[in-house]
């Protein structure tokens, strides 16, 4: 199963980016192969529509869950129809490694 995590940087000790649509990087973590991959978010500086475009971007990678700090208002219905689960973290000081450790528990 693939899980997308929004990240501030492209290292495992980067913090989780609290925004979804305009986050700096996406980490795609594969729970089966335990591998991760960083992708720069092409919509980081988008004027509008960053949320739906980012949904498109991660959905193309085949994720079934997204971990982020906050999702915009256009996102919920899109993700519902794609059956992608949202996980909202209210604690912004978690690193990508923390999240991966939690997912592996």
């Amino acid at each position, binding site marked *: 199963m693939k899980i997308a995590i929004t990240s501030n940087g492209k290292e495992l000790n980067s913090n989780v980016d609290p925004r979804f649509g305009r986050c700096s990087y996406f980490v795609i973590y594969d729970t089966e192969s335990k591998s991760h991959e960083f992708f720069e978010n092409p919509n980081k500086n988008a004027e509008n529509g960053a949320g739906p475009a980012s949904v498109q971007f991660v959905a193309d990678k085949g994720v079934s*869950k997204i*971990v982020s700090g906050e999702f915009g*208002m256009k996102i*919920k219905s899109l*993700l*519902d129809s*794609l*059956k*992608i*689960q*949202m*996980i*909202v*973290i*209210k*604690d912004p000081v978690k690193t990508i490694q923390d*999240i991966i450790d*939690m*997912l592996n*528990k």
Partner: protein
Amino acid sequence: MNPPVVKGFKPYGQQYDLKKSEPVIILFEEYESVKLCDYEMLNHISACEIMGVSRPTFTRIYASARQKIATALAEGRQISIEGGRVAFDKDWYLCQDCKCYFNNPDMDMEIRKCPLCKSENFKFIGQSTVKETSPDTDEELCVCPLCGYSIKHMQGKPCKDNVCPECKVPLKRNNLL
């Protein structure tokens, strides 16, 4: 429903000192009833179907909303929109261990554990409770920044108007410390 765009309204240009008056608290469902009826111009029957309540209940909510708005206008009081029994357009769960919120997009499958930390200690918060907005859950306090002395915060009354009896310094809101 979607949450209101603001948390409340404040009067301006008071003719005399109204500072002592308490704000009028309008519940989310009351706000929604007025929005549906008087902004979207729906009749009571379609509005009560959208809100998922019976026709008589809707009328009661709507009447109470108008009564409160009229009170605020007539007495020049603040309006605060909060609380009530509402479900926003989302079904959310809260994990008690890792404090994350998550939803269940695949309604056919029951959620057994938190998708993040695998804890089974989570609760459903999507219906009949308000996400982080219920007036009682997060008690607001005026706290002394030096000794920690605290009293219950009165809405509409700035914390700094209270002085700590021990340290004689103005108090601050607990969530700002």
